[in-house]
Structure formats: C-alpha cells, structure tokens
C-alpha cells in the first residue's frame, strides 16, 4: 500500500503527466487510423524513450499502447473501418448503431467499457499477478490449440442469417490463413512463386478491404443513384438505466480480456470476439445482435482494452511477452535497466508501482479524452457522404500501405474490398473470415506442434484438464446456435 502511495506521488509530476497524456493522445490517433497498429505505434516511439528517465519513458509507451487499442474503435463505430484488429468485433454492432443515428451513444459505451475494462485489468495485475502468471505458463501447444478452436467455434453465433454461409466464410478465412510458409515444416504453400506471399497474406489489409473499402463501394453506388442516405446524429445520450444493464457484460468481458491477455500468443482481437460471443450467450434477447445491440459494443470494447493489463502480467512477473506489443515493451524496460521477472518487484518496487498507478491514470485519461472528444468525433458524420467516401478510400490505401510499407498489401486490400462488396450483395457475413484469419495460424501451428511434441500420440488432447475443458466449451459453442435455431423454428 505504501508503495502504491509512493507511486501516486511519483506519477503526479508534470513531466510524467505530460508524457503520459501525449502518449495517450498519440495512441488514440494511431489507433484510429486503419493499418497503423498498436505494435507499430509503440515501436515508433521506442527510440524516443532511450534518453528518458524510466518512468516517463515507459509511461509514454504505455499511453500509446492503451490509447491505440481504444482509438481503433472510433473509426470502427463511425465509418465501419476497424483501426486495429482489436476493434474488428466492434464493427458488428457499433456501425449499425451509427447507421441508426446513435453514434453518440455507441461511442459513449465504447469509451466507458474501454476505461472500465482497462482499469479492472490493471487492478487484477496489481493484486494477483504472480498467482495468475503461473497459470498462464500452463498453456502449452495443446491448450493454445484448444483455445484457438474455442475462438473459432463462435463462428456459428456471428454467422448472421445463414449459418452455412457463416461457416463457409470462416473456412475461407482459415484457408487464406494457410497461405505462406507452413508453420511447422517451413514449406511455402499457395505462394504462386511470389516472395511477398511466403509470410502469408496479412489479415489487416484484408480486414480494411472487407469492412471499409467494400462499404465505400456500396456508398459510391448509393451516391451514384442518388439514394439520399441522410445520416442523422441524434443527440441520444446513454441513459443511466441502459448503462446499468451493461455493467454485467462489461465486467464479464473485462474478465475474459484480462485472462486472454495473459495467455502467450493470444491478444485483443481474439478476446474481443470471445467476449462478443459470451455477451450474446448470456443475453436473453439475442435478436438485436448484429443490428446494433449496445452489449455488442460494450463486450468487445471492454475485453479488447482489458487485454492490456492482462498482457502485462506475464511480462512483468516472468519476463515473458504475451504478444508483439509487450515484446517491444520488454525491450524498453530492459534498456531502462529494469529486468522483468520475479525479481523486478523486489529490486524495483517503487518504479513498478509507479508504472501501475500510471496505467490506471492512462485509463482515466482515455475516459476523459474519449468523453470530451465524442462531440468532435461524431462531426465526421456531418461530412457529406459524397466527400467522406472518397476520403475513406484514400485512407484505406494509405493505411494498407503504411502497415509494412508494402505495395502488395494495397493490392490485397483492394481485392478484399471487391470480394467484400460481393459478400454484401450475397449476404455472406465478413466477420467470420477475419475470425478464421486471426485464429487459423494459431490453431494450425499449435495442433501440429502438439503432435510433434507428443510424437503423434493423440492422447495429448484428452489427458490435459485445461485442454479438455476448452475443447468441450468449443463443441458446445459451435452447436448451440444450430440447435436453438431448430427449436425456435419448431415452437
């Protein structure tokens, strides 16, 4: 407790506050631009911190990290363009809310859920990090495979009208994910001799194309035929009663997010999808999901942002980075002479608790900037569609390019945009493709790695308790929507 107080004092210095604020705002901007990911933002800022004191340096990076995870949902909700993979799930209900004229409300929910989710995960980090970290270490190849399969099983609940079409789209995503070097043997698959394809087709260009560019094509079509699509921004504020109804969802999603963040190799994108699915599972009335349900925004947002605190758990206590962003943070900590691991808390207690307080504050800053900013963010919708749509098209191109300074990604993005347009015409849902793309590599490499480790013995999948539990949930999740649909039809 003393350490926390000391941390509080350390954080409230103008230099620290300045960098944290700067980092958070920069993070929100980076996150909201498609193609610029959290990892890229943090990596870009890394050299700046070399010459700085540990606390302001690390908190600058943490501000960028937290801010960018939040920023991605702004464009997801407003213009159907997920800024980061973490907000791919937010699109499903966030954009429909905007179309209904409730952008203001959707952004409020997103901001509140993000901040609450983030704060909960940091609290978990402060209170029980060491105990949880040892649990995260239990995750080996079979467990990660089971987790990926569980994530994939939610495809049946995000499929929309036709489950077969959803399953087809999900499988297509899985197949695209196999393009590139085979994760176990290193054999190049489906590359058609192109070196760009050996590392596979990135899912971010595909995501930008499928969601944003295809929507832009559709808007252009509406503009050409002069369908007047007047976007109304009703100044509907979130009512207290509505928020109270969301608290359960937010808390549950924060738990899911923190847990997922902890697992090495699983990040905000997966957490958001899983939380969305659980929100739907627990909801009494599921009809509004996919058409603009508030819970469909709260769940992925809370989960996505709570991954941040979760990912810090194995990083700080064991020195194990759970994903790419924390890998950069690991480097930043080490440059500052802070060696993450069991000894960190003993040798650098005051600094660690200062970082904790800083993380809490970063989430509070998100809340403040988010709520203050909503009025300005929604102004985007006042731009006439005729002008906004060409701008979105440009943003798609520059975003896909800047991802890896790669022209190939732009081509992929364009093809995905055309395909996405036909998906809309044929009423095939796009989200399952993204789900397959995100989870396909994780599932395949862990399945095959598990078999290498067990030398082909299948018992590795049914003799390990965590694996068995996760696989059972996966089966239940996959088949529940199939049966409930049958039952609903019969009754």
């Amino acid at each position, binding site marked *: 407790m003393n350490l926390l107080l000391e941390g509080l004092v350390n954080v409230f210095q103008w230099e620290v506050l300045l960098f944290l604020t700067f980092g958070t705002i920069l993070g929100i901007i980076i996150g909201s631009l498609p193609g610029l990911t959290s990892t890229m933002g943090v990596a870009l800022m890394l050299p700046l911190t070399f010459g700085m004191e540990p606390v302001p340096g690390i908190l600058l990076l943490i501000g960028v990290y937290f801010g960018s995870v939040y920023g991605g949902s702004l464009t997801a909700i407003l213009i159907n363009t997920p800024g980061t993979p973490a907000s791919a799930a937010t699109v499903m209900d966030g954009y429909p809310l905007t179309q209904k004229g409730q952008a203001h409300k959707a952004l409020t929910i997103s901001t509140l859920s993000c901040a609450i989710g983030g704060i909960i995960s940091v609290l978990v980090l402060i209170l029980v990090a060491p105990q949880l970290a040892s649990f995260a*270490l239990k995750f080996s190849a079979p467990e990660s495979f089971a987790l990926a399969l569980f994530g994939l099983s939610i495809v049946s609940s995000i499929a929309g009208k036709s489950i077969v079409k959803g399953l087809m789209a999900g499988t297509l995503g899985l197949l695209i994910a196999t393009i590139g070097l085979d994760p176990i043997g290193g054999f190049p698959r489906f590359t058609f001799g192109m070196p760009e394809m050996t590392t596979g087709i990135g899912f971010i260009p595909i995501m930008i194309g499928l969601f944003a560019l295809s929507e832009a094509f559709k808007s252009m079509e509406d503009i050409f035929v002069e369908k007047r699509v007047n976007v109304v921004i009703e100044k509907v504020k979130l009512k207290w009663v509505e928020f109270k109804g969301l608290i359960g969802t937010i808390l549950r999603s924060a738990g899911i997010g923190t847990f997922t963040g902890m697992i090495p190799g699983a990040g905000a994108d997966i957490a958001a999808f899983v939380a969305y699915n659980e929100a739907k599972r627990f909801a009494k009335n599921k009809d509004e999901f996919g058409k603009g349900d508030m819970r469909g925004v709260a769940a992925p947002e809370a989960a996505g942002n709570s991954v941040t605190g979760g990912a810090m758990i194995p990083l700080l206590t064991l020195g194990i980075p759970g994903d*790419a962003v924390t*890998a950069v943070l690991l480097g930043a900590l080490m440059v500052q002479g802070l060696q993450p691991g069991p000894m960190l808390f003993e040798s650098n207690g005051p600094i660690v608790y200062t970082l904790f307080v800083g993380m809490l504050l970063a989430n509070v800053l998100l809340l403040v900037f988010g709520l203050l900013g909503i009025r300005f963010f929604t102004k985007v919708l006042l731009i006439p569609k005729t002008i906004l749509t060409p701008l979105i098209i440009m943003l798609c191109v520059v975003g896909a390019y800047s991802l890896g300074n790669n022209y190939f990604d732009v081509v992929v993005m364009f093809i995905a945009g055309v395909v996405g347009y036909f998906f809309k015409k044929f009423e095939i849902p796009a989200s399952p493709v993204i789900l397959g793309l995100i989870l396909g590599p994780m599932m395949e490499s862990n399945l095959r790695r598990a078999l290498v480790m067990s030398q082909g013995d299948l018992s590795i999948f049914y003799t390990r308790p965590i694996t068995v539990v996760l696989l059972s949930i996966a089966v239940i999740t996959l088949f529940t929507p199939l049966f409930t649909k049958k039952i609903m039809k019969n009754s």
Partner: protein
Amino acid sequence: MKKYMKYSAFAIVAVLLLAIAGCGKDNSDGAGGKDEFPKKAITLISPTSAGGGTDAAARALAADVEKHLGQPVGVVNKPGGSGSVGMTEGANANPDGYTATMVIAELTMLEHMGVSSLNQDQMKAVAMINLDPAALTVPADAPYDTLDGFIAYAKAHPGELNVGNAGSGSIWHVAAESLAKNAGIELNHVPFEGAAPAVTALVGGHVDAVTVSPAEVKTHLDAGTLKTLAVMSDKRSDIIPDVPTFTEAGLESETIATWRGITVPKDTPDEIVAILEDAFLKAAKEENFQKFMSSNGLGIELKSSKEFTSFMDENYNYYKEMFAELGLSGK
C-alpha cells in the same frame, strides 16, 4: 460553363501537384558530387516487423548514425518471407547509398531454404554490427548441469528430449541439428514461431531444451528459472562469461550464430560505402548504442566492409553444406 469549371479544377490540382513533385525531384536528384555524400536523408530498411530485436537494433543505430552523417536516417520496416522481402528490396534499390539495409543471417540461408534466390552477392557489405551465438539452455531443475550430462541423458533416452527452436530451417534449428549430429544423439525438434515462444515453452516446462542466443534467455537466467549449459561459439559470450563454449565442454562444434549488419546495393560506389562504413562503425562504438545492446543482451561484433564480405561468403558455403546434409533444402 460547368464543364469549364470542372476542367479548370482538374488542371489546377494537377499543376499544383506536378509543381510539388517537381520541387521534390530537384532536391533529391542533386547527388552529383560524391564528395558531398550524404546530401539528403538516408533510409535504413529493416527486413523484420516493428518490435523485433533487429528492428530495435536498427532504430537505436539509426539514431546514433545521424550525428556522423549529418543527415537523418529513417528506419523503414519491410517484413516478410524470412526477411527476403525487405532484403530483396534493399538489394534492388538505387545504388546511390541513400538506401541501406539491415541484413540478418538469413541473407546467406534463403537460397538454400528455397525461399528466395537472394544471397550476399547481390549486396555490398558496409559493416557488421552484431553477432549472437546459439547456446544450449535447459530448465534450472534439469537432471544435468553440463553438456556431457545432457548428451549422456539424450543417449539413454533417444528421441525423447524435445528441443524448441525458432522455426524449421531457422538458424536455431540448424544449431540443434548440428548438436545432434556432432554428439551422435537423437533429438525431437519442436518448431515455434520465433525464439520468444520457444523460450516461454521452456520456462513452462513444455520442452526440455532450446538452442537460441543467450540474449533471448537472459531474463530467465537472471531469474534462476533456466540454465545455459554451453555456447556454440569459439569464444565465450560476454553476457554469460561463466558458461563454457562447446569445445571447452568437450564437443567439437562450429560457430553457429545469428548476426546483423549493414549492406547497400551491389553497384554502390566504393567512396560512398567507405563513408557509410566509417559512420556506422563509429556510431556502433559509442556509449549510447553499446548501452542499448548490452541492456538487451545483444552481443556487439564489429567487422569492416572487407571482413564482413568474407564472413558472409563463409556463412553461405557452410549453410549450403549444412542444409543439404540435414535435408532441409526447400528445393
């Protein structure tokens, strides 16, 4: 009337942009006098994604080199294809010295892996910056404390020891295969997506050993959860000076290491290479960069343009043999 306005708008924008582009061209094309190199910003291609060790080293180095060149040095990430995408672009860039590439050990391996036809002959070496050898690391509570103990255990339990590496055909996979070959033991090679997940699996007790660089296990060595038995190099590692080399531990072995260096396209004039070589080597010797490398556990190994060229050639030939022997060739 409207038609005219339409066209004039077009014309205005087009003229404006051509003007802007023209200005840019004037500034950039004036590299006539080679004695004044560099005249504009230099791009350093990092063939890995933002956030990796190569990227971090490139960024740290770029920040320091600026002072010596008097021009900004911007790092651009071009990840993909085990580094082949970025390095190929670097090899095909304008040979004017304004595009340099941070090359990685894979440059001398890609051709043998069948991933790409790129090799070191398509580049001109500027300087080598870093080298990290492979090291055999096991959990701290493993029943053996020496390389001999490990080999004896592996002989008693053939094919049972799971050894994690950074992916099939990666340098750390080659290291484990060469260990197995030299010691005459049978190991079960488990590929991961990079060194970090392999180390995580070792900490979690899901594999029995890893053959990655000391830098990648340093945190866990300090925490006491892992121990390194021997280093695959002809001299001990600066990070873990107490750990013997393979040869000292009683097993003849080649140096198997990952390395990073700076190259430019093949046709770059030698005067320009000399200026770059001088600047990069100077920057790498400075405290700033040294501190960055040592705090990240990365070994500094400086080689001049000449030394680096022959080093890469040796590497190339060694891996050619090695890959054929191990049956890893993608061809």
